[in-house]
C-alpha cells in the first residue's frame, strides 16, 4: 500500500512542477544572468536531460536518503526538511492535545445529556470551532492580546531544547488556534458516536448487570466510540503535519508549510518536490499508525 501511494505522489508532484510555464534557470538567476551561468545551472541540475531521466536521477537519490540540494541556495534539502518538521511536529502535537482536552470531555457530556441545555451549548461551541477560520481567530487573538496585555507576536523561533519555556510561549498561541479549530470536529464526532453507542443493546446489558453509570460511559460507550473518533483525529494530525501555511506565516514559524510556499514562489523545484514527498510519507505513516490502533482497540479488525 505505502509504496504505490508514495510512488504515485512522487510522479504527480514531479511532473506537475515541470508543467509550470517559465524557464526555471532564468527565474532563479534573474533576468541579468549571463548565458554561461544559466547553462551552468541547467547542467548542474540536469535540466537539459529528458524529463523521465531527471525523474529517475531524483528518485534514485531519494531512495538512498539523498534529497539533493536547493536550486537556489545549494543547501542540502533533507536536513532542512527535518529541522522544519521538528517545529511542525511539536506544533501539531500541542494543537492535538489542546483539542482533545476541550473536545472529548465536552463531546461525551453532550452525548450523555443529549437535548439538554448543556448539549445545546456544546453544539454551539463546536459549530463555532469548525466555522471560524483559523487565520481570523489568530488575528483577533493577537489583536486583543496586544491591545490589552501588551503582547507582541514573537519574532524568531527558539527550539524546545534551547529554551523550553520560551519555545512553549512561542508555540502556545498558534497551537491553541489550531487546536480549537480541530476541537469542533472532534467534539461533534464524540457526541454523535456516544449517542449512537448508548442506543446499542450491549449498553442495556451492561446496565442490567448493575454496573455504575460512570463505568458504562467510559469502559463501554466511550471505548466503542473511540473508533470513529480515531479516524477524524488521524486525518487532522496527518493534515497538520504537512505544515500550516497561514498559521506559520502569521506567527512567523519556520515550519514545513513555509518551506513549500517559498519553494514554489522561487521555482525551487528540488526543494518543493522533496518537501511534498516527505509530507506524503508522513501522512501515510500516520494512516498506518491509525490502522494499527484500530486493530489494537477492536478485536474484529485484524491488521494484515
Amino acid at each position, binding site marked *: 500500500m505505502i509504496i504505490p501511494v508514495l510512488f504515485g505522489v512522487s510522479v504527480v508532484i514531479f511532473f506537475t512542477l515541470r508543467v509550470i510555464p517559465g524557464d526555471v534557470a532564468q527565474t532563479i538567476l534573474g533576468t541579468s544572468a549571463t548565458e554561461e551561468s544559466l547553462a551552468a545551472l541547467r547542467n548542474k541540475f540536469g535540466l537539459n536531460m529528458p524529463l523521465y531521466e531527471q525523474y529517475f536521477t531524483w528518485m534514485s537519490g531519494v531512495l538512498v536518503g539523498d534529497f539533493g540540494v536547493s536550486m537556489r541556495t545549494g543547501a542540502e534539502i533533507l536536513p532542512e526538511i527535518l529541522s522544519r518538521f521538528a517545529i511542525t511536529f511539536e506544533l501539531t502535537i500541542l494543537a492535538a492535545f489542546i483539542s482533545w482536552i476541550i473536545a472529548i470531555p465536552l463531546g461525551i457530556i453532550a452525548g450523555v445529556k443529549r437535548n439538554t441545555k448543556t448539549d445545546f451549548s456544546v453544539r454551539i461551541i463546536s459549530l463555532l470551532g469548525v466555522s471560524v477560520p483559523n487565520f481570523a481567530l489568530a488575528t483577533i487573538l493577537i489583536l486583543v492580546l496586544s491591545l490589552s496585555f501588551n503582547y507582541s507576536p514573537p519574532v524568531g523561533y527558539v527550539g524546545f531544547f534551547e529554551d523550553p519555556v520560551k519555545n512553549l510561549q512561542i508555540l502556545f498561541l498558534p497551537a491553541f488556534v489550531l487546536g480549537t479549530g480541530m476541537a469542533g470536529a472532534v467534539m461533534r464526532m464524540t457526541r454523535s458516536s456516544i449517542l449512537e453507542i448508548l442506543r446499542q443493546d*450491549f449498553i*442495556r*446489558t*451492561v446496565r*442490567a448487570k*448493575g454496573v455504575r453509570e460512570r463505568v458504562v460511559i467510559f469502559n463501554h460507550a466511550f*471505548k*466503542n466510540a473511540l473508533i470513529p473518533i480515531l479516524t477524524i483525529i488521524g486525518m487532522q494530525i496527518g493534515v497538520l503535519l504537512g505544515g500550516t501555511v497561514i498559521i506559520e506565516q502569521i506567527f512567523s514559524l519556520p515550519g514545513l508549510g513555509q518551506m513549500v510556499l517559498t519553494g514554489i514562489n522561487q521555482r525551487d523545484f528540488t526543494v518543493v518536490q522533496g518537501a511534498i514527498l516527505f509530507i506524503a510519507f508522513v501522512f501515510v505513516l500516520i494512516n498506518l499508525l491509525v490502522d494499527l490502533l484500530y486493530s489494537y482497540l477492536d*478485536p474484529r479488525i485484524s491488521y494484515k
Partner: protein
Amino acid sequence: MESLLELKDVSIDFQSKRKSFNIIKNINLKIDRKMKYGIVGESGSGKSLTSLAVMNLLSDNLSIGQGEIILRTEEEKVLNHLSKKAMRDVRGEDIAMIFQEPMTALDPLYTIEYQIIEVLKYHRKMSKKEMREKAIAMLTSVGISRPEKIMDDYPHQLSGGMRQRVMIAMALITEPKLLIADEPTTALDVTIQAQILDLMNDLTEEHGTSILMITHDLGVILETCDRVAVMYAGQVVEESTVKNVFDNPQHPYTQGLLKSIKTLGDRSEKLYSIPGNVPTPDEYQELGCRFATRCPFAFDKCFSEEPPAFQVGADQTSKCWLHDEEANPNE
C-alpha cells in the same frame, strides 16, 4: 406466601417536547417464587417496556407514570422509588435479564471473561482467581464444552446460540431470584431454540429462580410457563394459568391468537388471522376497549367505556365487557 414480584397498576408514559401519551396502562402482575411466568402478545404490545420498567431501564423519554413495582426478597422494595444506587444493587443481583439479540447484546470490544466477571465485580467480594473459576464453572453448566477457550474469545467469534448461552451464564452467575428473558430464542435457529429453553428451565429449577418469559410465541409459553398474561396495546387483557388460557380462553383477543396458531398446523383451513393491525401508542383510544376496532364481538359500550378486568372462574381474569352480565347484549 406473598409474591416475589408484583406490578400494581403500572402505567408507562411517553413524553417529548411536542407530545406525550400513555403507552402501558394499569398493568397488574404477580410472580411467585419459583414460578415461570409468561407475557405474550404481538409486536408492539408493550412486553419489552414492561420488563424494562421492572429493571428501571426505560429510556429517558419514557417514565413510569403511576403504580408500584414491588420486589420481595429479604425485604420489600418498591423498585420504581429506589435510589439509583439501590437499584444497581437489585440489577444483576436480585433480577437478571437476557435479551433477544445475542448478536448485539455483548460488548464487541471485551472478552467473554471480562463481561461475565463484570457482574461479580459489582456484586461479590471475590479475588480475580475465584471470579475466573466461578465463570468457568458457570460456562460449563450452560453446556459449553471448552470454557477456558471461550473465556478468552470475543463475542464475534461465537455463534448466536453460544452467545445466548454466555448471556444465560452471565445472568445466573449471581443466582438471582428472578430471571427476565425478553424473547431469548426468537433470533435463534429452531433446533437451538429448544436447547436454550431446556437449559433455562433446568438451571432455574436447580436454583429455584423465577422466570419472567417474554415472547410473541404461544408455543414457548406452553413449553416453559406456569402462568401467562396476554398483552394487547399496552394492557394485560387476560391472565391465568397456562392451562386455563389455552383450554378455555376468555378474551376475544386471546381466542383470536389461539385460533391463528391452531390453523397453522391444519392446512385444510384458510390461515386465520385477526383482521386489522395492532395500533401504535398514539392511536390508542382514550375511551373504551383498545381492542374494539378489531374485535368481532364489539358493541356500543366497548367504544365508550373501558372494561375492567373481570374475574372469570376461580383463577382467571379477562378485560372484556362480554363478562359483564348487565352490559353484554347477548345475555
